[in-house]
């Protein structure tokens, strides 16, 4: 009886150690699924910061980098110089999604820091971003012919670009 119980204990113990060392060694999965592999949601009457209606086809032609930003977002300011650099180099179009922002503050922000975007979608209520699966700012999507191939939550910089985005070019 005693020996049996001890063996049961040893079995549990070994399983326990194995399980937690596995859990410590494996990289953590991201909590929410990324939007990779999905098509862009279609929404009528998107407008840019000037109030002009956006042609939906401009989002789904060729390689488009969608970047969610706002003037209240501190990390967006951090990644802004990198986006400016990117807009001059690679063969891709950068389109902003101005997320839950004040129109005049957003325009000021672009005036002060430069405008790397071909245009920015003015998403005051965050409705388009919600459909897109955005949970906050900044987030960046690489879209090829209307299909999201890469989704990044958080800051984007040279290292992230080289590690995760470069393969698509």
């Amino acid at each position: 009886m005693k020996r049996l119980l001890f063996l049961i204990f040893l079995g549990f113990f070994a399983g326990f150690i194995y399980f937690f060392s596995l859990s410590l060694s494996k990289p953590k999965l991201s909590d929410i699924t990324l939007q990779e592999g999905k098509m862009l949601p279609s929404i009528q009457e998107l407008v840019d910061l000037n109030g002009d209606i956006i042609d939906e086809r401009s989002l789904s032609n060729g390689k488009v980098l969608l970047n969610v930003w706002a003037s209240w977002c501190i990390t967006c300011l951090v990644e802004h110089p990198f986006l400016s650099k990117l807009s001059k180099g690679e063969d891709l179009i950068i389109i902003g999604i101005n997320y839950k922002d004040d129109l005049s503050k957003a325009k000021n922000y672009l005036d002060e820091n430069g405008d790397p975007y071909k245009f920015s979608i003015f998403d005051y209520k965050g409705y388009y971003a919600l459909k897109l699966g955005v949970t906050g700012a900044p987030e960046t999507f690489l879209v090829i012919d209307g299909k999201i191939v890469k989704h990044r939550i958080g800051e984007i910089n040279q290292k992230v670009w080289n590690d995760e985005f470069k393969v698509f070019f």
Partner: protein
Amino acid sequence: MGKLIKKFGMMNLKYFFKLIALFCLLANSELLYKNLSEEQLVRLNYLSDNIRCPKCSYGNVSSSNAPISKDIKNEIATLIKDGYSDDEIFELMKNRYGNYILLNSGEDKMPIYLIPLIALIISILAVTTYTIKKSK
């Protein structure tokens, strides 16, 4: 029997209170989600209690103050109004954010419901039979 007790339960009283509240609205103030019926409001509460805030480390959509939670709650309200069923809304949220944000009991959570139940029954039976045997 279940229905009988539910009928005398506090639920009816709650509806009654909420109904009064709806009638007594004054100008300039409004209930958010006021265009939902009583039944739909209950569904909204159920759904937002069982969908996790995707941006927070813990807490559901109804208890979190994060902007994204408010957006999701609003969207659920819209979806309810558009005639989506609870399951369809759960499915839609799951497709967008992943399984992680569902807090309701799904099939993938069956083991943790069954294991304690089985353990309880087996241990009570084992201890009782052993005790009876020893007592004799």
